[in-house]
């Protein structure tokens, strides 16, 4: 009887005792296991392509009173861009000339305001425990599916060497938490246009965006740990559960739906930007209480 710590060796035909395949992407499964990874590649790929294009474009991210989440908070406005935001809307006004001059001139695109901020939501999603599962399976094939042979690695290290950086997820979370406040602030600003209170479809789109992102961010595994999961005891000396327990239970409810919020918020943040792009370009009109949209600048 073999009792070694290593799994049984493969035969020359690539199978192990038990008839199991050993080569990458091989499996005995008969169901459509490829569908999940393919949908993930399509969904994440489409979002990365669209968001990259929009971040680099640096235009049509603002139509009063709506600011695209890809550009919020607007640190600087770049006067080189047409159809950007009014300079006055940026936190620090016009982009300093020194920054514009420092930008390599051989690059085919100008310095976009999105470059200052997208690292925060980007790193939060990139190190998210759910997305890690999604891209390890779909893009890196480790493994592509359950009981499907992974792409071979001579010395598998998991998240202990290069990928040890994933452990900084909680720092990305701190940034993402700040963005929830900023995006709600943008949504509230979208209740006023030209000094007049009102509401438009764009306002609702922005509120929905902030809410879905809040559902995603507050269901984060690191957040769940920090608010209570790190404790061994939720109760005090007389057995009364404290605030940490209530918060932890609420976060756990969101955490159980983390994947759904991850996809819903990803789609909606892209849709929000597209809505503002479409209104700014004049492709559609924003239905609102102020009358016709002002259009882009």
């Amino acid at each position, binding site marked *: 009887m073999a009792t070694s710590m290593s799994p049984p060796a493969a035969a020359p035909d690539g199978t192990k*005792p*038990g008839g199991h395949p*050993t080569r990458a992407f091989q499996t005995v499964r008969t169901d459509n296991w490829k569908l999940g990874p393919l949908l993930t590649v399509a969904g994440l790929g489409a979002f990365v392509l669209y968001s990259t294009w929009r971040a680099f474009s640096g235009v049509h991210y603002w139509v009063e009173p709506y600011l695209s989440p890809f550009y919020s908070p607007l640190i600087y406005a770049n006067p080189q861009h047409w159809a950007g935001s009014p300079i006055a809307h940026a936190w620090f006004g016009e982009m300093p000339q020194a920054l514009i001059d420092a930008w390599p001139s051989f690059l085919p695109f100008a310095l976009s305001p999105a470059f200052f901020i997208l690292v925060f939501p980007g790193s939060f999603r990139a190190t998210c425990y759910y997305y890690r599962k999604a891209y390890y399976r779909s893009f890196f094939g480790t493994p592509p599916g359950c009981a499907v042979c992974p792409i071979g690695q001579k010395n598998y290290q998991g998240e202990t060497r290069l990928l040890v950086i994933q452990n900084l997820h909680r720092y990305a979370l701190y940034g993402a938490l700040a963005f929830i406040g900023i995006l709600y602030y943008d949504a509230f600003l979208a209740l006023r246009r030209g000094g007049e209170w009102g509401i438009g479809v764009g306002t609702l789109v922005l509120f929905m965006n902030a809410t879905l992102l809040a559902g995603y961010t507050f269901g984060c595994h690191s957040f769940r740990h920090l608010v209570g999961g790190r404790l061994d005891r939720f109760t005090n000396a007389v057995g009364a559960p404290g605030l940490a327990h209530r918060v932890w239970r609420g976060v756990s409810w969101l955490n159980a739906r983390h994947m759904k919020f991850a996809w819903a918020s990803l789609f909606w943040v892209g849709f929000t930007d597209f809505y503002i792009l479409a209104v700014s370009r004049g492709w559609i009109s924003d239905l609102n209480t102020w009358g016709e949209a002002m259009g882009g600048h």
Partner: protein
Amino acid sequence: MSERHFRVWRGDSEGGEFVDYTIDVEPGMVVLDCIHRIQAQHAEDLACRWNCKAGKCGSCSMEINGKPKLSCMTRMNTFGPDETITIQPMKTFPVVRDLVSDVSFNYRQNARIRPLKPRPRGKDGEHRMYQEDVDRVQEFRKCIECFLCQDVCHVLRDQDAMERFTGPRFMIRLASLEMHPLDTDDRVPEIRDEFGSGLCNITRCCTEVCPEHIGITDNAIIPLKERVVDRYYDPLMWLMRKITGRK
């Protein structure tokens, strides 16, 4: 009653082959019933481990159409009427014979884990703990040790890392001790260094195959990884420990 086709792997640790069987299947039968019928009608020496036939003993783990499953809980009406059903032993463990695997790797892992080290008893001489504090641990106690999670975990199954990673079932056991309201042992260093928490890349297959629906990844492995982050990778936590003197 309908005629159904099976491909069952027959052999031992030296090798073997798939053997085809055809039997009549009646409504309500599960895969384990079919294996028993194959034994009765065609291959009385077909080796198969089973016990309760109720999804509670964890004995009849095997791979059915490539998926790690309990054969006693896999109903025949979940397959298409013309589908050939392929049955294999678990891939991760050495084959003893036919559908029986040598799962002693798991017992060795279990023996490595230090038992509960409770804090001193209260003034009334009792160990007291409250339901809110043991809810998490009780979820882990549902484990029936079928080892399907160990089988499907690619780190054990395909990455040749059994020396370095203890596997999902034992991450659960470690979590049940690490989160235990009475336990005083400091387990975080060995969870990282000895049991290999960093090798898990949280692809969640263990959770998907668990017949007890334990949230292995979300409720055990990721919380343990976060405790490892507290100890080793978070500079703010490090600073706080220095200031407060707490671990």
